[in-house]
């Protein structure tokens, strides 16, 4: 993995970010930074802006104001085209966003999802090897490679969504509520797999309501309340 050390600036630098949907403002003038190698937990109740923060970073909110710098490049600039217009470019700059609801393709098989996730030329060449590594992390997917993801259970879909996001090495991984809607045993195994990942120079932010799953196992815990961050930001 090529390494660009930028001691002055971390992986993600968010300044004065406000964002929302239509007339609704969800994030209020928020500052947030993540440095290389960090695993950060973002906790808070439903509707307080965890997902909106992630969606603003990947350019999926209707509007946003303020600065978002991903690995030193501004990705939050003024958006004329509407939600999702720049998302594929931001993703290609090194963002892996595993959203709530998993954003799967119901008719494509597990193997095809993983192929989709390998979107750079290098990742595409190495996709078989990477797939085997991910199957070792999420063993239940091994038997399901040829099944359409629309026919899988919630936990299996979550694994597919996470594995797809992990196919191409990213600088910043945003994982939105990995335990949502899953049985406790499955959510624990999924969170274990995530926390065991080698990030290299990358960083990971996990949004989670179930604080018990993450306490003591991440570098920092930030609380999100009413569109603002509390804690050691």
């Amino acid at each position, binding site marked *: 993995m090529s390494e660009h050390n930028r001691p002055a600036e971390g992986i993600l630098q968010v300044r004065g970010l406000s964002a929302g949907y239509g007339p609704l403002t969800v994030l209020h003038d928020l500052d947030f930074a993540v440095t290389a190698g960090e695993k950060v937990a973002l906790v808070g109740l439903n509707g307080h802006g965890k997902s909106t923060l992630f969606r603003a970073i990947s350019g999926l909110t209707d509007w946003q104001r303020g600065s978002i710098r991903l690995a030193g490049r501004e990705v939050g600039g003024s958006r004329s085209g509407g939600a999702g217009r720049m998302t594929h470019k931001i993703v290609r700059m090194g963002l892996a966003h595993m959203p709530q609801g998993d*954003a799967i393709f119901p008719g494509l098989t597990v193997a095809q999802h993983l192929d989709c996730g390998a979107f750079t030329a290098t990742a595409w060449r190495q996709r078989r090897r990477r797939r085997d590594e991910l199957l070792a992390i999420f063993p239940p997917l091994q038997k399901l490679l040829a099944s359409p993801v629309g026919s899988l259970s919630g936990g299996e879909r979550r694994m597919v969504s996470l594995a797809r996001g992990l196919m191409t090495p990213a600088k910043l991984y945003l994982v939105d509520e990995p335990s949502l809607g899953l049985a406790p045993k499955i959510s624990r195994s999924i969170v274990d797999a995530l926390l065991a990942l080698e990030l290299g120079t990358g960083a990971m932010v996990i949004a989670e309501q179930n604080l018990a799953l993450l306490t003591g196992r991440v570098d920092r815990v930030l609380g999100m309340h009413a569109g603002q961050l509390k804690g050691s930001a």
Partner: protein
Amino acid sequence: MTHDLSYIALTALNLSCIYALLALGVSIVFASLGLVNMGHGFSFAAAGYGAWLVASHFSSNPWAVMGGGLLTGALSGMLICAIAFIPLHEKPNFVLRGMVATLAINLLGIQALQTAFGPSSRSLPALFGSGPWALGGWSVPADKAGAIACALLLMALTMAWMTRSRMGLQVRAMMQNPEGASLVGIGVRRTALLVMAVTGGLAGMAAVLLSQTYFVSPYAGTTPLVKGLIVALAGGLGSVPGAVAAAVLVGVIEALTSALLGGQYVLITQFLFIIAVLLLRPRGLGGLLDHSRE
């Protein structure tokens, strides 16, 4: 009587294949881009003239003529994409806007073709030789046999492209979840241009193949567009196997109607057929065959 029946079957197959090429284009574009491409008829007509220009000015080599049609079709598809999809696709109510914009392109394009080439019809050279092909014990007219073989090959290639290639995978990902597609680095505009070029090329090939039976004229695209839309709707928009099945049925109905009742009843029976299909299966035939859509 047997000869009569085999002639009907052959005509049905020929028409089915060409309608399937058009319907595939309409269907893929709707499913991946959410655009009802009324400009498909313009791509079809323009490709007829593109092939004719190649045949009359450069070479009447079958490959060159087909290439001319394919390329003109693909370029018209990209033109439609640039005018009607890229500026409009993020606007509210895009389905309606896109339909109106592509319909306008269709009408303007047909008028432009008429201004440029005049209203009279042109004919393309026979691409598949003049004598009949001997297939087993049958002798099959060359124009029909060649058109059927080409169309089947193209459909097979399109299906293989959609299911096996990396680009096809991206197109299907975008069909099924645009937000998920953007999260794996798939850009809507680039994919849209590609899809419109491929489907335009299919329309172009359909035009060249149909010109073996009918003439090239500015209005040549209108009836095939209507039939392509019928087939795509009856097949269940977005379903490739559904479109193929519906194309076979519509082609059989057309051939049977014109042989048994007369050509003037063709559109009536076809519309009755699609009304029946949509009454019984509002999502088209595709739901029966295609497990990929939930």
